[in-house]
């Protein structure tokens, strides 16, 4: 481990091919640059989606005060908020962003195996984002069909954005899927083929495992969305009747006959449920590594963690219809899917126990990434437990159309992965930029976000029990709801705006750090994984200088008895005690 070479590093020095600004930062084939491009684009659209949710909350909290939000807008906000957050932010950020950055560095490779295809993947993603944003500005605006885009209403008169809006949405999804497939084949092949010597599968950090399995899920599940998007485009433009039943639209027969909206729902959720785990598995993996590193303790039950990831990935393909209990399915069918849904809770619970047991008697350092990781355990347990309720048909039926569901899925796949995203950014920021951020500001960011999101979503469960329906623009005459429901809604809105505003702390901190942050140590957390052992800091093009690393141990040699340091990097040979470096781990 060299501690001299990084100090006077300058941005101009790259001893590899890309030497102009354009080849280095724009048409770059370097996985690290592509990762940052993916990340920035995803965060940018994510901010748009955050803005949309603020508008929705304004309407819900103070129904009569904002004349510029009408029912059509409101549905467009819901739709675009959901679609952007799930696909264009979380999927792209975890796999395109962290996947791109971490896979080659953690596996000890110089780059992805197909750098050119990797670059194409990002640019296709950017095209899909541009198409998506363009749909805001076409005649009629973006689609307001809900993020699930259920036919027949998605493409029938009366739904906002029924002409260009929905077509651009479907087109954007198709382009996104092509982009993802190019990236995904790259990630899978890189993990399988380009690991450095000694990096067996069972020595890979769990981050890589999570991203790897999530990518496989994506590759197999996204085709379902592609098929349904194409068929819906045909229904809309060529008047086929794949999904469109015989309907009358505003007194006119549009010419459809006999199609099945349920068929769309099956296809959509065959993608939609694995999608949950496409977002969750990378988060599981990353959080495992963060917990282990900042608790200075090996991850509890590594092999079990790997197999839990694989089991969750497999099971996620046979639970999809639990999103469709209210579609009027055969009770035996519902029983089957309720059972599989409850079974998937087993490997998930194993993971949660192992995280908690990793903390047990650890040397816990409550740095910013650790705070976010522990916060994730809380929000994930809450969201997961309500999932057990909703997984049962009898409980789901009355709750399905209420805010209980909104609270559940925001807790489990909104807040939880986003907390991991923040934790991961705070964790790897020194590696990516070579600079530190302000810890205090980061801790403020965590506490305000964490407590703020509880203030938003905990009351939503009560609203759901009380019967407040979701998807409604305004409540109207609802005698069964007490007036206090509206007060609670107003309180939620205030919390939501507060949390949204809090994110400014994050951006201020990071932008400040880029310019004025103190230079960081190459391995500020005393972590074992390979990305912290690069000869250059931050790593340069090619990652490893002249010689590739060689791996001799797993990624979790923390506090090994008999060693002076409390960590042993993966590339330290098995017969050598690490050279004494004083006390590791204290910062």
């Amino acid at each position, binding site marked *: 481990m060299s501690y001299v070479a990084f100090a006077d590093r300058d941005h101009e020095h790259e001893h590899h091919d890309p030497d102009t600004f354009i080849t280095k930062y724009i048409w770059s084939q370097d996985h690290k640059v592509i990762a940052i491009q993916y990340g920035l684009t995803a965060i940018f659209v994510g901010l748009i989606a955050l803005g949309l949710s603020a508008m929705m909350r304004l309407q819900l909290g103070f129904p009569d005060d904002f004349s510029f939000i009408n029912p059509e807008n409101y549905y467009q906000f819901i739709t675009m908020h959901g679609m952007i957050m799930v696909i264009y932010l979380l999927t792209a950020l975890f796999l395109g962003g962290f996947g791109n950055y971490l896979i080659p560095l953690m596996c000890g490779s110089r780059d992805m*195996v197909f750098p050119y295809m990797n670059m194409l993947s990002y640019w296709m993603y950017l095209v899909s984002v541009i198409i998506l944003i363009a749909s805001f500005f076409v005649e009629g605006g973006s689609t307001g069909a809900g993020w699930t885009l259920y036919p027949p209403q998605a493409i029938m008169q009366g739904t906002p954005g029924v002409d260009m809006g929905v077509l651009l949405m479907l087109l954007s999804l198709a382009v996104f899927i092509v982009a993802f497939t190019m990236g995904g084949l790259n990630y899978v*092949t890189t993990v399988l083929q380009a690991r450095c010597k000694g990096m067996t599968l069972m020595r890979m950090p769990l981050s890589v495992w999570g991203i790897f399995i999530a990518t496989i899920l994506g590759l197999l599940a996204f*085709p379902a969305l592609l098929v349904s998007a*194409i068929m819906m485009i045909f229904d809309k433009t*060529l008047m086929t009747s794949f999904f469109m039943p015989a309907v009358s639209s505003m007194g006119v027969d549009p010419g459809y006959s006999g199609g099945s909206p349920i068929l769309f729902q099956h296809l959509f959720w065959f993608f939609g449920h694995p999608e949950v785990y496409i977002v969750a598995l990378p988060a599981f993996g990353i959080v495992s590594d963060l917990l282990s590193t900042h608790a200075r303790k090996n991850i509890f039950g590594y092999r079990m963690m790997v197999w839990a990831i694989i089991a969750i990935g497999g099971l996620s393909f046979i639970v999809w219809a639990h999103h469709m209990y209210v579609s009027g399915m055969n009770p035996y069918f519902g029983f089957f899917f309720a059972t599989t849904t409850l079974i998937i809770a087993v490997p998930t619970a194993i993971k949660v126990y192992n995280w908690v047991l990793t903390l047990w008697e650890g040397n816990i350092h409550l740095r910013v990434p650790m705070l976010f990781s522990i916060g994730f355990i809380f929000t994930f347990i809450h969201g997961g437990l309500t999932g057990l309720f909703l997984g049962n048909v009898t409980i789901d039926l009355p709750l399905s159309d209420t805010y209980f569901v909104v609270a559940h899925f925001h807790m489990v796949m909104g807040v939880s992965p986003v907390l991991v995203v923040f934790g991961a950014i705070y964790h790897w920021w020194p590696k990516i930029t070579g600079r530190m951020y302000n810890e205090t500001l980061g801790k403020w960011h965590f506490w305000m976000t964490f407590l703020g999101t509880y203030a938003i979503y905990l009351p939503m469960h009560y609203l759901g029990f009380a019967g407040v329906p979701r998807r409604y623009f305004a409540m109207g005459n609802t005698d069964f709801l007490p007036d206090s429901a509206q007060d609670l809604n107003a309180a939620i809105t205030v919390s939501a705006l507060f949390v949204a505003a809090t994110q400014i702390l994050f951006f201020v901190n990071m932008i400040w750090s880029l310019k004025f942050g103190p230079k960081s140590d190459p391995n500020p957390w005393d972590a074992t994984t390979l990305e912290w052992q690069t000869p250059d800091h931050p790593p340069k093009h090619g990652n490893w200088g002249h010689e590739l690393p060689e791996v001799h141990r797993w990624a979790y040699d923390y506090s090994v008895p008999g060693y002076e340091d409390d960590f042993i990097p993966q590339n330290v040979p098995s017969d050598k005690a690490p050279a004494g470096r004083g006390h590791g781990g204290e910062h």
Partner: protein
Amino acid sequence: MLATLLGWLLKQSFNTTPWIAEQVSDTAHHGPMGDSSNTKLIALMGLLAVVTSFFALIFSAYSLRMELGDWVPMTEPQLLWVNTGMLILASLVFQWTRNGAVKGQRNRQLPGLLLTGVFTLGFVLGQYVAWQQLQNSGQFISSNPANAFFYFMTGAHALHVLGGLYVWARATIRVVLGTADDEKIRRSIELCTIYWHFLLLVWLILFGLLLST
């Protein structure tokens, strides 16, 4: 396929004790950017898995939609038999070319590639003519769900064939210009052959599905 994957994963992970540090034998891994033909083969297998998922979902949508009342079975154009023959020939010739390439018989390269191209293009053109025949007889995409599926499935398949032809064209141009070494051409031909066989298999299943319903 899934069973193989699972078995392989089991082999990798059972009876391992990752927490014990030790040297790993040289056979465990090549370095990054190692054997690139193997890398491309794995990527191709990944792509085939994606395409399999894509078509399997279309086929299951087909069988679900078929059950509904407004479905009128379609009579497929007889031309499809000729097209099927073309695609089988293309696959056979590609295999012949591949076998030659593996044995280092350069004289098979160009005629083999060109002949494959002719048959494959013949298939795509034939599909287009079949579409025309249907259109002329008043069988439009919106006439009936069976028609809609016919156009969708054959179109999707033909697009995949065209994608293969793009790779084929790159290899063929390099052979014609003589700009690539034998090793590269051989790898190209090997991978293309797998893709061609795969698309033939998809077509046979698709055609069988169309005929039987």
